[in-house]
């Protein structure tokens, strides 16, 4: 396991949709990086600023700002949430490089892989 998320305070998670919680639990127990993808997609949908708008088909190429209506504050909220549940730090440069869901997933996966084991 690349990290030890069970040590991460994540009370916010308890309020999120069940499939996301299940994916997080799966990741926490197995370290299976495929779960990260599901968590990132669910988080992106959850933190859309205009939640009332129709959800477009989401894939790796779906763009946060252009397709999902994200603004800079919503991106900051999303990043804070992911940092918190995975105990990561994403720099401004990391965030500037994120345009799509695929970019974000890859960024989170890269950061997780770089974390010291058990950190």
């Amino acid at each position, binding site marked *: 396991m690349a990290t030890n998320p069970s040590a991460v*305070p994540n*009370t*916010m998670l308890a*309020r*999120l949709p069940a499939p996301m919680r299940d994916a997080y639990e799966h990741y926490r127990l197995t370290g299976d990086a495929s779960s990260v993808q599901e968590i990132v997609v669910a988080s992106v949908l959850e933190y*859309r*600023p*205009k*939640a*009332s708008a129709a959800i477009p088909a989401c894939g790796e190429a779906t763009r946060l700002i252009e397709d999902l209506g994200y603004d800079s*504050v*919503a991106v*900051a*909220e999303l990043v*804070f949430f992911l*940092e*918190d549940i995975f105990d990561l*730090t994403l720099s401004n440069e990391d965030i500037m490089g994120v345009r799509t869901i695929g970019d974000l997933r890859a960024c989170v996966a890269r950061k997780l892989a770089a974390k010291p084991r058990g950190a």
Partner: protein
Amino acid sequence: MSPRITGIGLITPIGNDRKSAQDNLRHGRHGLSHVEFLGNPALPVKVAGTVKGFSVDSPHWRDWTWPDECTIPKEVLRGLAPHGLYAICAVDQALRDAGLTAPDIAEDPSTGLYCASAGSAMMLHHHLAQMRAVVGVRGNPMGVVSSIAGTLNFNLAAHYRITGTVCGFVSACASSSHALGYAIDDLRLGRLRRAIVVGAEELNADSLLPFAHMRALSKQADPVLASRPFDAGRDGFVGAGGAAALILETPDAAEARGARTMAVAAGWGQAADGYSVAAPQPDGAGLFLAMERAAADAGAGPESFDHVSAHATSTPVGDSAEAAALTRLFGKRGLRPPVSATKAITGHGLSLAGALQAALCVLSIEGGFIPGNPHLRTIGPGCEDLDLPRASLPRAPRLVLSNSCGFGGSNVCHVIGAPEAVTG
């Protein structure tokens, strides 16, 4: 020119709509409930003016519940403190009451927003604790806008797309009276045609217990004994939460759309004590001057007032100072307008108090009654010259003086009149 009050919205301990608040005000029914903070039954704070129909104890908006009639988009909830939720519900209600819709005020440069709250100590505490837990590395990006004094203006201006004016007021328990006063001025100066005034506070351990540590809160467990302004046995105030919103319009703007005028904002005045950071000047000189200035602004002499809505929070020193000021203004001239202290039934909503009091004045004018002082048993020393009816009087006030006093010696006084009693 006196702005018209064309709508009010109330989320209060005595009701979450105009009619129930008016009924409870008329009949002297309090909205105080037993409370226990931080799971500690030994704390001396036993009762408070609780808001019913909402659950906002958590710092996480996903945990909150509120009445169905208020629709708040998720993207708005994220930036709110609990009292922001109250405020939006109250403003929505006030707009409906005034016959306005959200699109009517959106991006209208002649509509301004005047807010008052102390911010959210609970949210601030939560977000800072979260930041400190990770040694400052990260924090919730919405932490600032959902916490600090100003959270109401930030959120409501964005939500309602206010483009005329947006501002906030922080003068403790006089805050929303200041908001109302400066809204009136901007309307009278022709800067705006419509103003939304809202005061709001939440009620939780973080907002209220610090006042217990100042020895300012009642220790009584019986609501009737806990909040009894001007009574000889009063021992402190009872905290309250909620929100009150008023819609004000210039006479031209109100007339142009055929709006109903509930009451008229006839004038206001303010003066400072220059005395203490927290205690009022014992002789109420600052409040006396504020009342004189308000009366002069309204073009009314003391004999013109047939009702006073007192600030009276049920603290020993505060009520005495106000009684002294009222006696000087009225009693020394042989005048005895009925005085009501509505905090007996609402509790003291701090920043919310002035707007709530103004709204209750509107309800009494509209409802044709002068509220009573239902918890008063024995009139306290120094308050004997006041006319303090126990039960409501079945007559409509024509011109009301409504007082607010805040820490640091802020004294603000409003004159609210029946539509037929105020010309211009």
